[in-house]
């Protein structure tokens, strides 16, 4: 790593931080500038960035990452029930528990690679989901989901003499409420820290080692290197990211449900990473934001809003237009997402980031004759 790339990394980090922190401003025209959705962008961005450390660097496709998200959520809610409503202990505990959980699952699953590894992780995640859903009901409250209640002990808060009387306490960071915009800024700061760590991992010898595993694991083994510890660490780190994302979900909305661990949730993070661009630094964040945007904004369009949008169309055809478009919005938003995903995978196998690079490459070639090595590197 030479000095120039170190400088450009710092610039990348600063730009990333600025873009994330100004979300409330530039998301306004998209109708997405409300705290809950921005929190989701940050949380799922973190989840996808963590997933990318495993999938993007080592090429190991885990189909069970939602299990760590769920474990993180449950841990955080229990920390809020038993210890304190402060989100920091909850976050640390979640990272720790999810990391331990990831170590156990990773230790077993990483004995295999390729499709067998994917199936093993999927099996573990579904097992965790079913356990949370039925067998472990005393801990997880099953389908209803784990919630705070007035009768929770909250030992630390009780010792500190914090009482909220007959109303439920809210999650806080040393007194600052974690709902609404402050909650978003907290998630955003955590995301930026998470992004920075991921950046350092990408640039470190450890990251290079993981990339080596991705390109040819057998050759790595022939050089006398034991690849398993590296894989396990990558798995644990990305599990910790997922646990932290789960803790943030609980911090902004103190509820943990089993459906967070379902295989669809695991599949979602795979989609996010591939849609944005696996193996790139920014891609997973882009993919996560796009999917969450679709899920929250497109799914809310109903005939009423469509009629408003197509107000300019003559009445005679407006009915047909609205009917046609309504197939793709409202409860049909999955259809739009599916089409988008297909188009991306077919035409831009490297995800949205590849699209950006191609556009960037187009411009740099036309405008000047600078060598394209910088623009077409596999990192953003």
């Amino acid at each position: 790593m030479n000095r120039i790339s170190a400088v450009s990394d710092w610039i990348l980090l600063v730009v990333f931080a600025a873009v994330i922190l100004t979300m409330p401003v530039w998301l306004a025209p998209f109708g997405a500038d409300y705290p809950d959705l921005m929190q989701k962008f940050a949380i799922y961005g973190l989840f996808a960035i963590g997933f990318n450390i495993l999938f993007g660097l080592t090429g190991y496709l885990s189909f069970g990452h939602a299990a760590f998200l769920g474990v993180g959520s449950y841990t955080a809610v229990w920390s809020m029930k038993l210890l304190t409503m402060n989100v920091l202990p909850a976050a640390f505990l979640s990272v720790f528990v999810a990391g331990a959980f990831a170590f156990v699952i990773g230790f077993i699953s990483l004995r295999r690679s390729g499709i067998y590894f994917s199936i093993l992780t999927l099996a573990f995640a579904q097992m965790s989901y079913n356990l949370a859903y039925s067998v472990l009901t005393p801990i997880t409250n099953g389908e209803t989901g784990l919630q705070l209640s007035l009768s929770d002990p909250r030992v630390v808060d009780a010792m500190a003499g914090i009482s909220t009387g007959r109303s439920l306490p809210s999650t806080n960071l040393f007194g600052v409420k974690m709902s609404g915009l402050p909650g978003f800024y907290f998630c955003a700061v955590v995301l930026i820290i998470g992004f920075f760590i991921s950046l350092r991992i990408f640039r470190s010898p450890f990251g290079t080692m993981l990339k080596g595993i991705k390109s040819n694991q057998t050759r790595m083994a022939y050089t006398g290197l034991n690849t398993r510890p590296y894989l396990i660490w990558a798995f644990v780190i990305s599990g910790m990211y997922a646990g932290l994302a789960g803790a943030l979900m609980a911090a902004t909305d103190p509820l943990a449900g089993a459906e967070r661990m379902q295989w669809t949730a695991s599949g979602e993070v795979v989609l996010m990473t591939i849609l944005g661009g696996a193996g790139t630094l920014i891609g997973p964040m882009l993919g996560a934001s796009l999917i969450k945007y679709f899920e929250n904004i497109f799914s809310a369009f109903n005939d009423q809003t469509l009629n408003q949008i197509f107000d300019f169309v003559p009445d005679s055809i407006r009915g047909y237009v609205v009917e046609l478009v309504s197939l793709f919005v409202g409860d049909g938003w999955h259809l739009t997402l599916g089409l988008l995903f297909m188009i991306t995978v077919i035409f831009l196998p490297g995800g949205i980031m590849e699209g950006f690079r191609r556009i960037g490459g187009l411009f740099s070639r036309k405008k000047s004759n600078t060598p394209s090595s910088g623009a077409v590197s596999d990192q953003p």
Partner: protein
Amino acid sequence: MSKNPTNNWSRRDVLKASAASTAIAGAPMFFSRHAYGADFLNNPGDSGTVTLGFNVPQSGAYADEGADELRAYKLAVKHLNGEGDGGMMNTLQPSALKGNGILGKKVEYVTGDTQTKSDAARASAKRMIEKDGVVMVTGGSSSGVAIAVQGLCQDAGIIFMAGLTHSNDTTGKDKKANGFRHFFNAYMSGAALGPVLEKEYGKERNAYHLTADYTWGWTQEASIQASTENIGWSTAEKVMTPVGAGDFSQYITPILNSGADTLILNHYGKDMINSLTQAIQFGLKDKQVNGKDFQIIVPLYSRLMAQGAGENVKGIFGSTNWHWSLSDAGSQAFVKSFGQEYGFPPSQAAHTCYVQTLLYADACERAGTFEPCAVGASLEGHKFDGLGNGPTEYRAEDHQCFKDVLVVKGNDNPTSQFDLLEVVEVTPRAQVEYAVDHPMFAGGDLGSCNNGA
């Protein structure tokens, strides 16, 4: 992604950059200032409209109910805005509704899909509260979701008018000061069904429970078990099934060998349609156990489910909150205007959602404001009539409506595709009423109401 950093900075660049960073730093102040100054969250103020949030399942096991709920909400909005024939606005007694919106503001609405999942439902409700600025959220069709959204509305400081939710916990262990339920609950179903079952099937039966594995299933199973054991029945076994399982055959086979002579299906929506159909395909209804005909009971019934299960519902007992064949003026007015709008009669889910919207609007009119605490206070202890259930009271202590409960039976000779249920008995309110601290409802606390600002 990154720009070339080696350019020299001109004065213009410096000015631009400092302006941009000021804007960035100032953004949080600008965007959070709305949180102060308003006396309650999402105060419509001088605006000519007011927005309600309709959060219903549009996918999942309860999607049919959700679709019907949404129809009812749209109809209620129409009536509140003075369009259409007014439906039950004309029969509600006493009524402060004027047919010009709520407090003179035109009613608008936003919709969301709960997907019958707590997470999705809360995300959707949060969008309504934070982005669309709703003053009230309503919906349900799964008690797990209703409880989750009720908790959210309590935290945020918005009134939650529960739609179809039948678990005891909604107004029991998980009751909230900002949440109100018009629908009846599992305890009431048990109390109403008990005497009818005793009369029809005698005192000696052995019941086998199949139960949806979440709050509603748990409390309904406990309620029905208590009331059947009260009339002398025994309980063979209680088996939990996942919500939305689709195939119940693995749960039905063991019933044949369990020695039970009665199957109690604590299922709802598509789950009930599937499990009932499969139970009948397996020949349970034709069996004789302990010298008695095998019977199936579905404690919570709805016409939509009966329609889905078709022939199979014949002769099967259950309870319901409301049925379109009732002959009182309120029910008839509602069935008429719903029928004119959509071409078929409303379900009980549609009824309770329509009623909740009207009750909320009426409470706002009486309170003279949208402020959640004031609206809540005017709903607490409110007595009304003419909404299809006879005289009804919103009990102040737990925000549960108390009214008569219908015991119904699958119609043996339906005269139309909607005439599937026959009302066997109208159980009077006194028989289904319980104390606030009844063990099945204990452990909760309303807490204090929240205005959100």
